[in-house]
């Protein structure tokens, strides 16, 4: 059986093309059912079909046709991988190493959802379980997903560096810029609450009053001058510690505010510098993550290779057991004089002899399977021990 992958991602297709082959969970479930033993992974960055079939070329043709039926143009942006390469790709995807932002955490959940919606048999079941394991291992053993990858999440993470848990923290949002709203949303998901959304109609007095009650100020207006200066902040904040996030260009907040004791002001450049640094950190962690993923892919390869020799090993052991039992039956006349304890000892000794004789050939066959000689060994064992000949004759 072969594992076949056909798909496209942000590396190969622009968003205009990707969105035409994107599938929701129900459609992905239907596609997987139509393909037989298959899983369809569809996210905003990729649509991939994982199929298991005896005829890899045929399975690949079907998968390509399925995606081309959604959008004919996508055929030129498809990649096609098989067996170990397909498994390695899936492991990298689950670990976030193939993502637009290295190490992003959402993909692991999306892989799990795709697996649960698919129609996996024993091979797909194994490869997806191992991919999920690899993804979890990368997150546990590296810091690839620990630091924020966007300006808005960096702002929220900075607030946590000042205030700890943000439950109950109050935000003053000045202006309704898109980035400002994203930053506020990020803060809210961590427990903070918006105390006031100030716009051009909000009076200066109201803003100053709020400065004495809030913890974080996020500003993103199109005003041409400073909306708040250091003297105003110092007079209004009631000695409170404050974090100012200035996402506006030109800036809304006087840089002198940062010089006040207990006040921290970060503008868009400061946040972008932090994000660049964290992304660099993610890339350096990605090197460690790649090695973890490669190890997991190798384990999968060993397992898959062992499938070639497992039937031969099972037949060999069955044959040996058959001979052992037959010989014991032949010696029934002699063994009949033995008591139960002695009889059990004889059975145990003969079983041990068989096991010891077969142990090394079993190990060697599994080792040979990994180095692609497994099929030759399996055939040799079948030939030497006449396995399966009874059925053929």
């Amino acid at each position, binding site marked *: 059986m072969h594992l076949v992958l056909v798909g496209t991602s942000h590396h190969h297709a622009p968003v205009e093309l990707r969105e035409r082959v994107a599938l929701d969970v129900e459609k992905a479930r239907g596609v997987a059912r139509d393909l037989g033993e298959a899983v369809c992974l569809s996210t905003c960055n990729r649509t991939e079909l994982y199929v298991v079939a005896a005829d890899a070329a045929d399975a690949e043709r079907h998968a390509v046709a399925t995606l081309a039926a959604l959008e004919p143009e996508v055929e030129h942006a498809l990649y096609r991988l098989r067996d170990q390469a397909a498994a390695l790709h899936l492991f990298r995807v689950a670990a976030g190493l193939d993502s637009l932002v290295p190490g992003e955490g959402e993909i692991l959940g999306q892989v799990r959802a795709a697996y649960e919606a698919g129609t996996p048999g024993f091979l797909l079941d194994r490869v997806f379980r191992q991919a999920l394991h690899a993804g979890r291992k990368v997150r546990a053993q590296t810091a690839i997903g620990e*630091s924020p990858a966007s300006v808005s999440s960096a702002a929220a993470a*900075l607030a946590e*560096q*000042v205030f*700890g848990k943000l439950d109950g923290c109050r935000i003053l949002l000045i202006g309704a810029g898109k980035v400002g709203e994203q930053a506020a949303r990020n803060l809210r998901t961590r427990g903070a609450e918006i105390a006031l959304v100030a716009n051009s109609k909000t009076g200066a007095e109201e803003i100053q009053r709020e400065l004495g009650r809030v913890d974080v100020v996020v500003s993103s207006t199109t005003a041409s001058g400073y909306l708040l200066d250091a003297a105003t902040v110092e007079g209004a904040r009631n000695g409170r510690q404050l974090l100012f996030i200035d996402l506006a260009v030109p800036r809304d907040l006087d840089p002198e505010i940062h010089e006040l*004791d*207990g006040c921290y002001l970060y503008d868009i450049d400061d946040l972008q510098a*932090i994000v660049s*640094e*964290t992304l660099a950190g993610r890339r350096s962690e990605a090197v460690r993550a790649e090695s973890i993923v490669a190890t997991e892919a190798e384990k999968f390869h060993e397992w898959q290779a062992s499938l070639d020799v497992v039937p031969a090993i099972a037949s060999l052991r069955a044959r040996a057991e058959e001979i052992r039992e037959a010989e014991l039956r032949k010696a029934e006349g002699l063994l009949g004089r033995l008591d139960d304890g002695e009889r059990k000892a004889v059975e145990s000794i003969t079983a041990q002899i068989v096991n010891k004789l077969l142990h090394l050939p079993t190990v060697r066959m599994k080792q040979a399977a990994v180095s692609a000689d497994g099929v030759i060994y399996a055939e040799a064992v079948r030939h030497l021990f006449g396995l399966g000949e009874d059925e053929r004759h």
Partner: protein
Amino acid sequence: LAELLFWPVLLLYGEAAVGYFGEARRPGSAGRAATWGVRLGWLAQTALLAVQAAREDGFPWGTWAGSLNLFVWLVVGIYLIWGCRGAYRLLGLAVMPLAAVLLVVARAGGGTGIGTRSSYSNLFLVLHVGLVLVAFAGFTLASALSGLYLWQERRLKRRTTTILRRPAPSLATLDRLAARTVFFSLPPLTLGIAVGIERLVDRGERIDALVVATLVTWGVWVAYLVLRTLGWSGRRAAYLALAGFALVILVRLALPAVHFS
């Protein structure tokens, strides 16, 4: 046996100190190794103290060097309450080098061996030395938390770009923990001083320089708590804690010659 136990303790505390330097440069395995160094070192030191207690007739840490040994054990023990958590690992950078150095000083003074004797009674030593050392260990930890606060605040003020790659406990948490540690450490110091003064009065002895320095130290920590209720927090409170710690070190190291007999 005490001699044999000293070296593993020093080795493990030293390993932890080096590990925390590694953690500050690149978070990960160095920090985990350092935490294990602290745990195992503290267990080894506990065994060392147990051996000392078993071999001595009375209170084995009555000398200044012996009390320093006990002090190190208390400091590391209190640190372990937080130190095992990932976010507080950097606190070890302030605590473990100090612990290793003080342990060496304690050994140089004969405080890690057997056979040191004090002329004071056991009950008095347990109450006076024990309580003062518990308090001093608490103040040491509070100062380490304050030091970490100042370091974290400096990173925020300098807008260090690596601040989210190497996150530390938040300013609010460090400030709150330092205050709480001082709050719980002051009563033992007050009691320990009271026991000592009561003995001085009983015997009609004169107040020496160490008693004065200890009273000043007590006053600084009382002021710390009072000022916090008046709104002092953050950087100012952290500097005051470090000033209090300087006095703790002065009392611990510079003046014992005039106090212990």
